[in-house]
């Protein structure tokens, strides 16, 4: 019995993307090795923390995107939703002057509400996820600008706000490990989402929807409701990303956000989650997000022009998916 219970956690996605994840992990290690040999500055604690901090926002967004992609959908609105949630937090904290907790709650609820709406478009109105979330992406982008009056909202009135991302709970206990809260939050979100995906009924239906939605529906399951729930969960995770980025900038920047969804999807794909749905893991996505930020950081340390960084990231995506195809062909 204990054996089966323990295999439960490595169920669905792992069997398939296991090899890919290993490959992604090996690539990450290889990148780190290459960069640390190329530059002594790379392995400095401060640089590693900078990499992790840089991963936190994209990592959290990528986790949200992973959920939707496993159902066989896609979420293009994660970036602008993040900004929208940040703006909502700004409204609650700065415009209305409410305490910090309300701002946090408002951001997450705004995310969940927007996710529910996207999910409803997809599940009930049968609008293809690409289109539904493309529409939501633009709607949210516009709303952020409207609500904020196109100007950044600063959080100077809420002193604790920057602590969400920049403070270090771990550092206050272990001064040798000044890991910022943003990174801690990324890992907590990853663990929680992983748990939901592998151990709960919501997670199981997330995989089942991506595997064969019609079979699930014909099993008498209310597929619409579960799908909306997945989009809502993804939305609330975007809310967390909104808090992270605005805390780091000490402001909600309404013009920011578009483009983040592509980095997030890139991380998901590099991490071995199938765009056709039914398989994927959070740990893979996390590795994918780390690969992207290690690349960006390492190339910067080696003084490679920033223009080239996106060229490299793009190539990595194509390479990652191609190796997956090669591996699958051998099966």
């Amino acid at each position: 019995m204990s054996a089966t219970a323990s295999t439960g956690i490595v169920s669905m996605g792992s069997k398939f993307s296991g090899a890919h994840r290993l490959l992604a992990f090996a690539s990450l290690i290889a990148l780190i090795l290459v960069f640390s040999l190329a530059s002594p500055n790379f392995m400095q604690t401060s640089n590693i923390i900078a990499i992790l901090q840089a991963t936190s926002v994209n990592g959290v967004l990528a986790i949200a995107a992973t959920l939707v992609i496993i159902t066989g959908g896609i979420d293009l609105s994660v970036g602008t939703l993040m900004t929208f949630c940040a703006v909502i937090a700004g409204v609650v904290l700065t415009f209305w002057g409410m305490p910090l907790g309300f701002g946090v709650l408002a951001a997450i609820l705004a995310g969940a509400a927007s996710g529910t709406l996207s999910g409803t478009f997809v599940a009930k109105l049968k609008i293809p996820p690409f289109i539904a979330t493309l529409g939501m992406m633009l709607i949210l982008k516009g709303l952020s600008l409207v609500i904020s009056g196109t100007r950044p909202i600063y959080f100077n009135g809420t002193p604790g706000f920057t602590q969400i991302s920049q403070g270090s709970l771990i550092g206050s206990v272990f001064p040798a490990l000044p890991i910022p809260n943003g990174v801690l939050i990324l890992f907590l979100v990853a663990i929680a989402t992983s748990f939901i995906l592998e151990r709960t009924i919501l997670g199981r239906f997330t995989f089942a929807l991506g595997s064969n939605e019609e079979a699930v529906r014909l099993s008498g399951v209310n597929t619409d409701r579960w799908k909306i729930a997945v989009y809502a969960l993804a939305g609330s995770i975007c809310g967390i990303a909104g808090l992270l980025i605005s805390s780091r900038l000490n402001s909600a920047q309404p013009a920011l956000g578009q483009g983040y969804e592509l980095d997030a999807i890139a991380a998901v794909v590099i991490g071995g989650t199938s765009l056709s749905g039914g398989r994927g893991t959070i740990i893979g996505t996390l590795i994918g997000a780390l690969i992207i930020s290690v690349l960006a950081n390492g190339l910067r340390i080696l003084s490679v022009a920033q223009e080239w960084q996106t060229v490299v990231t793009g190539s990595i995506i194509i390479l990652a998916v191609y190796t997956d195809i090669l591996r699958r062909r051998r099966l």
Partner: protein
Amino acid sequence: MTALVAMKDIEKSFPGVRALHNAQLDLRAGEVHALMGENGAGKSTMMKILAGIYRRDGGEILLDGKPVEINSPRQAQDLGIGIIHQELNLMPHLTAAQNMFIGREPRKAAGLLLDEARLNADAAEIFASMHLKLDPRTLIDGLTIARQQMVEIAKALSYRSRVLIMDEPTAALNDAEINELFAIIARLKAEGVGIVYISHKMDELKRIADRVTVMRDGEYIGTVPAADTPVEKIISMMVGRALTEERPDLPDHANSDVVLKVKNLNRGAAIRNVGFSVRKGEILGFAGLMGAGRTEVARAIFGADRRDSGDIFMHGRKVDIRMPQDAVRAGIGYLSEDRKHFGLATGMDVRNNVVLASLRRFAGPGGLLREAAMHDAASRYIDQLAIKTPSDRQEVRLLSGGNQQKIVIAKWLLRDCEVLIFDEPTRGIDVGAKNEIYKLLNALARQGRAIIVISSELPEVLRLSHRIAVMCEGRLTGILPGGASQEEIMHLATLRGEGANQNNQPAKGDAK
């Protein structure tokens, strides 16, 4: 006489499985050679090697007595070997002619323009040689499955194929279409084409096959002449033991409770005023030709498709079924004819597929799944239904058709449905496993479930059913007792027109 094709001592392994071992086949020019075996016997693998889709690990292939290497489908085509897959590979938005000559269209104007006229003329010529009346300019979209298959055959012929492999070509055809197909096969035979014919249907073999090669567990069992080998002999070669045909016992259910009652069911032209009832412990068979509307009735009852009108009663109480979840809540389970698309999440494991319809029951506080309980439930049905799988963590797509069907059955048993609707329960399932499914259905009925079986195979309907409902063109043309003859059923199945409404209840013309 040299064989047209000789496959000798073919070996093929996939990771963890030996698919073929010492497999043999020799095909003569101008013969229909049936390749038989249970699912997983290696028939398709063998033919995919001949068609260049898989590469063999060992053995040799001789064409006209000379060894050949076939490493790609293209090479196979060049050697004159064509294959008609069970699932057709046509582009629906192109015409028949465009599909046939895709990638090698005739050109004009120094190769810059397509020569559409030549294309259509070439296609028309091949159709004429097949005695097929079909406009080459018809879109594939608008053709019946049978016609699409003819286009596939024409396409294979356009490569001057001397060897034609057909994988279950009649699976989706009705009797008239099968006759047309067989007429074309006869003409090809006369022209010296060698045909390898894969099928599960015994009566077809008797009609068209010259010789039969039987495979079992990836190995060659033997080749026998089709005409003077009894069916029982072929079946015992396939399963490795003799099967006894069981006659159905016909229990009287007149006094049992009516579990499901359907009244005045309508849906466009597909379902016209259908009404019937099923009693506790009864197996009600649904017979009819392809397209008679049986699947449509099942899906409408189950809430998978919208219905225009009609009432459904469970134990005399009216139930409002709009979606499958309503039907399941009312205690009705539907097992689709297309397991892969509608029945199973094939990428998931046995355990999760068995609990799929009952997953809520296994969710504790916070939606946390009790994997141990799920494992217990899945294991119980693996034992009870004798599902052959290494463990309940095995992915369903790796199991045979018969075992997949049992998993779908397990799913509905676990959900504890009183009414089970089986749509073509043994489609794509080999002979040995069929018997097991039949026994299972009988056992379920004896346990007091009400069972509906839709089947296009008359022997299956006759063998299982306690009563037989027959449909034609969306109408229920009659309900016969279990012992009815094939002729009686066929009569009702072809009873066309408005006057045919002979329901067991008064017909109402104004049901809408």
